[in-house]
């Protein structure tokens, strides 16, 4: 009696259902994992892709955007993946390790597995984990994510990924680039667990190479930041892309730990970077930044929930968005403070600069506070480029286009500089310039 009325599937939804039936036998995982996949596929079948009547997707209608379901990308050889990587510029000459996911699965040949092992970092295939005894634990989703459609798509279709484990106390000498490589067109679905054990320090650079065509990219980054550990993650999605780019962060932060993340979105037609972050230990800090640029009729969405489930933690959320033409930007940020999470300090700010008259920004900062001894603030601003600033620069001889570039860069740099990761500051600035020059 209570069964929901079956929905009329869009072409994409029908395609996803058919895609699941086709690939199900070949997807990795224990029986328990397969059951989770089936349940997720069933959710998609029953409720469809997330759309504007689902509160969390009100401004980011994936159902309307996805016209069809491209097949999952076929496995790629190392040679194919390498040739895409060779033509891919991410962090230039920055000294770093690399871990490669090609068409959704871990490629050990192209990854610095041995060098990382020497630094106390083990890298294993996510699919080995899925096949193991605790495989279903790797697909666990936090309660605050609810029945999230992006996560369901990931759970149903996840092709692979890596489990990165940084051992107790390790201070990895170089940042690690975790690059998702697309060889040929097709959907890419991967999931990655990053475990930074007690007292360890780790810097992760998440990048995306190659062109998936109309296929969606759906990547989950699942972080465990143990007591006293430090993790800094920079997610860099730059360049035009036709298919939906769907990224999810799941983070659990132990006691006395530090978690920093910056999500940089510039170029895709449809991008959502969603983050579900929870404090599980006291005296920890999370600093979450967003730098978003969109033009044409593109959409870029930064959504997050920071769950202060325990007392004495600080969180800072600082998001900057620049929109041109008729682009749409979305910021949905929520800070939850549990009843006993006293002495929470949360400060959320979202600022948008609208360059085009047809551009639109939806800013939705929220605080849900159930404790009485907390410091929490949120703010949102939205405006055009300041004509007085522009005039000042031009009056000093700086041509208009260059003055605009300087001001946009200055606006976005506030978040990049506060993120304060020397290894990426310059490159991100260069990406902003490249976007402006495009």
């Amino acid at each position: 009696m209570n069964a929901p009325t079956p929905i009329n599937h869009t072409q994409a939804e029908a395609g996803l259902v058919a895609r699941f039936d086709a690939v199900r036998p070949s997807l990795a995982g224990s029986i328990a994992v397969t059951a989770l996949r089936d349940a997720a596929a069933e959710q998609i079948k029953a409720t469809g892709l997330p759309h504007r009547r689902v509160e969390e997707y009100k401004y980011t209608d994936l159902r309307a955007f996805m016209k069809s379901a491209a097949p999952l990308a076929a496995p790629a050889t190392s040679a194919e993946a390498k040739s895409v990587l060779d033509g891919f510029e991410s962090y230039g000459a920055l000294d770093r390790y690399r871990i490669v996911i090609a068409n959704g699965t871990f490629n050990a040949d192209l990854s610095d597995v041995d060098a990382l092992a020497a630094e106390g970092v083990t890298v294993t295939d996510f699919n080995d984990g899925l096949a193991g005894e605790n495989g279903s634990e790797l697909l666990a989703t936090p309660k605050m994510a609810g029945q999230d459609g992006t996560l369901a798509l990931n759970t149903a279709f996840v092709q692979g990924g890596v489990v990165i484990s940084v051992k107790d106390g390790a201070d990895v000498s170089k940042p690690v680039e975790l690059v998702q490589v697309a060889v040929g067109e097709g959907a890419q679905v991967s999931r990655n667990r990053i475990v930074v054990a007690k007292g360890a320090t780790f810097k992760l650079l998440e990048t995306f190479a190659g062109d998936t065509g109309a296929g969606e990219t759906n990547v989950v980054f699942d972080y465990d930041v143990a007591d006293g550990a430090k993790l800094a993650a920079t997610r860099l999605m730059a360049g035009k892309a036709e298919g939906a780019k769907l990224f999810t962060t799941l983070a659990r932060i132990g006691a006395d730990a530090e978690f920093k993340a910056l999500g940089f979105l510039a170029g895709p037609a449809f991008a959502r970077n969603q983050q579900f972050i929870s404090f599980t230990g006291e005296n920890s800090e999370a600093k979450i930044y967003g730098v978003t640029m969109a033009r044409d009729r593109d959409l870029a969405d930064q959504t997050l929930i920071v769950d202060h489930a325990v007392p004495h933690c600080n969180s800072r959320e600082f998001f900057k968005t620049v929109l041109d033409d008729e682009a749409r930007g979305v910021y949905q940020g929520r800070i939850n403070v549990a009843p006993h999470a006293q002495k929470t300090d949360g400060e959320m700010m979202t600022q948008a600069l609208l360059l085009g008259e047809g551009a639109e920004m939806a800013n939705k900062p929220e605080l849900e506070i159930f404790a009485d001894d907390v410091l929490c603030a949120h703010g949102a601003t939205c405006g055009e480029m300041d004509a007085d600033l522009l005039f000042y620069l031009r009056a000093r001889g700086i041509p208009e286009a260059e003055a605009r570039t300087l001001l946009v860069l200055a606006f976005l740099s506030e978040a990049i500089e506060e993120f304060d990761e020397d290894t990426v500051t310059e490159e991100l600035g260069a990406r902003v310039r490249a976007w402006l020059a495009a």
Partner: protein
Amino acid sequence: MLEIKNLHARIAEDGTEILRGIDLKVNAGEVHAVMGPNGSGKSTLSYILAGKEDYEVTEGEIIFHGENLLDMEPDERAAAGVFLAFQYPIEIPGVATMEFLKTAMNAQRKARGQAELTIPDFMKLVRAKAADLNVTMDMLKRPLNVGFSGGEKKRAEILQMSLLEPSLCVLDETDSGLDIDALRIVSEGVNKLRSPERAMIVITHYQRLLDHIVPDVVHVLSKGKIVKTGGKELALELEKNGYADYVGEAA
């Protein structure tokens, strides 16, 4: 060098008439002071020279080095040699002062067909001129004008002026917000820039700035017109008697 002929201008947004027929000729090497009561159009004149879009010129012309200044964009005017020292220098968070100076100098050099400065040459130049104006390295490292005191902002303006070496310096109430020591430092900086090739228009309410920057010619602006022109002694007379006489004349 500069010739303003029958300049009429209004606020673009609401059509309020501000300038009602300004005639002003400034030769190279001269320092002209423009004085006048609040609302007489002094700042408007400076903004129109620099090319601010908020004003609309309805009549008249401005010839600068033989070219029609009103046809030029603000950045073209700067490259051609116009510099406005702002009454209220603007804070630009996120733009480092040094980066801004380098960008501005190189943009002007590029517009004039000169090669860009090398970084060592640029640094040397900035260090030397900054020291003269008591602008510290700490200030230069900060974002442009952000957290600068009133005096620091004015010193930073004059530093920009000395680095950009304009042929026409327009100083809009540079003395406002300055204490006596800051006024002296700023004035010395300005006086150092006086040269036979360079002209200055010094806009001020008060005579005290003109004790330090001694003008060749003093104009009184009232209700959008120049109502009196004289030598430096005119400024002293205004200080003593106020603007009442001239405001009356214009009415």
